[in-house]
């Protein structure tokens, strides 16, 4: 008598492993065109040394973690106070604070046909929360600004395409902590990982311009920023053009500097300061 569920065929012990091997081979062969299509050169930057495959599998996790780490910089800057918790706690405790938020809250409450009345127990819990969490927005003491730096580094380690973390981190290193060499190293790493990140090129240009007075290198990075394919608003563009103009001027290339400022004027025709600077440089040239 046949066993139920055996299909009535001959039992071949090697069928299952053979099928599995065939399927795995198919998957491996499919991987080659899929990988070539899916991962561009820019996205193949490894998050951890030698961990390219892991970073591809866990890409979303790393990127999300990087965003959380980026928020930490803001939290550290405000001594542990996050904007949301600050408003909410103050409002709940009825202790000063954000009136606009309070009005919105009241409006929403009445919209649903009821008002959120706070009894004594509510107020006690609110006061507890107020005392247990950081509650007064205060900036980090200037002597402890170095405490922000691990979060910039960790953000870019988890997401090497986090352009803002590179640019802002580079600024803090160079201008707040006086670590110019470290800032340049960090920003160069950012440019390597984000060739089109004009904010990083601009920042490194500013470091060369303001800290090292190396106008030739500054010029190179400002020009690189202007060549970026990334979307750039006119304020950013005008800012870079101004720095580029001064880089030319300090190297003695007054005509090039004037041309740059004319581009600024093209973006903002009402800019009186640009008109004055162009006029002054034209005079100097003559």
């Amino acid at each position, binding site marked *: 008598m046949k066993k139920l569920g055996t299909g009535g065929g001959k039992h071949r012990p090697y069928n299952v492993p053979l099928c599995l091997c065939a399927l795995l081979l198919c998957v491996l062969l499919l991987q080659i065109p899929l990988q070539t299509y899916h991962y561009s050169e820019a996205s193949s930057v490894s998050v951890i040394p030698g961990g390219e495959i892991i970073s591809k599998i866990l890409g979303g996790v790393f990127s999300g973690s990087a965003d959380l780490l980026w928020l930490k910089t803001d*939290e*550290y800057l405000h*001594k*542990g106070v996050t904007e949301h*918790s600050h408003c*909410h706690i103050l409002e*709940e405790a009825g202790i000063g604070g954000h009136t606009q938020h309070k009005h919105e*809250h009241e409006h*929403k*409450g009445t919209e*649903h*046909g*009821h008002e*959120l009345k706070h009894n004594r*127990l509510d107020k*006690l*819990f609110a006061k*507890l*929360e107020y*005392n*247990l*969490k*950081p509650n007064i927005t205060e900036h980090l003491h200037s002597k*402890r600004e*170095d*405490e922000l*730096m*691990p*979060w910039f*580094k960790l953000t870019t380690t988890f997401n090497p395409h986090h352009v803002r973390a590179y640019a802002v981190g580079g600024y803090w*290193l160079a201008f707040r*902590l006086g*670590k110019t060499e*470290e800032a340049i190293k*960090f920003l160069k790493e950012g440019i390597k990982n984000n060739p089109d990140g004009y904010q990083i090129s601009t920042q490194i240009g500013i470091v060369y311009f303001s800290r090292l007075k190396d106008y030739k290198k500054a010029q190179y990075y400002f020009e690189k920023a202007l060549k970026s394919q990334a979307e750039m608003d006119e304020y950013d563009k005008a800012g870079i053009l101004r720095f580029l103009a001064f880089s030319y001027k300090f190297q003695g290339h007054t005509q090039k500097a004037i041309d740059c400022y004319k581009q600024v004027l093209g973006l903002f025709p009402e800019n009186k300061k640009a008109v004055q600077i162009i006029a002054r440089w034209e005079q100097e040239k003559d």
Partner: protein
Amino acid sequence: MRAAWIIAKNVIEESIRKKEIYVLFILSVAIMAVAAMASFFSLTGLVKYFTELSFLIVTYITVIIAVVVGARQLPTELNSRTIYPLMAKPLKRSEFIIGKWLGTSLISIFCFLVFEGIFIILLLSKGSSVSGILIQGIFLHILQLMLISSIVICLSAFMTNAANVTVSILYFILGHWIGKAISDALDKCGAFLVWMLKSLNYIIPHLDYFDLSKKIVHQWPPVPAWVIITVTIYAVVYISIFLLIGTLKFQRKQL
């Protein structure tokens, strides 16, 4: 209470015999050591980053210890039938539950104090000092461990080991956000839902009241004494409630 103490001692001895605490100990010390030695842009004396990471690791590891040790107490006794000779002795079921809770709490508190000791040594080596807020934070976390132990022991009278571990860990993770989540939801709800959510807000213990980590990291001054006293009373009330529920359920079990 002597009987409860004997039960508690058994829990501690059994936990010391098992290997999981040692694995967690090595793991957390390794993470703390790496965090202490990590260098960023050749900056020295970075205390806040190290405090944040260490306190987070120590908090999670000790809660895991409390949950893992507490969750297996009743199911293991029932499955291995070791509970029958115990119940034949002059031992009240309430004493049995209290003993299990006490043992679980003590082992997790002991681990926490060892970890904190290592953390404080590393902190002092970085040139920092032990602040008042850190002492308060340690005290509140001890209360939190006792509360979580009571929840786990209570749940172990209702569910299996695996289910208990899952529910308790999930509750610990979400427990810190409950107050804020409910508060945010109040704006978007109708009157009945507001009433429901507010009731839920009062019923569920808020674990965020035991968390001073942000104030510790950012070196805030100590919180007022009335806050610590209120949170202590809050913890004692909830611990009593959970132990009572656990005892009542356990008393109804046919053994």
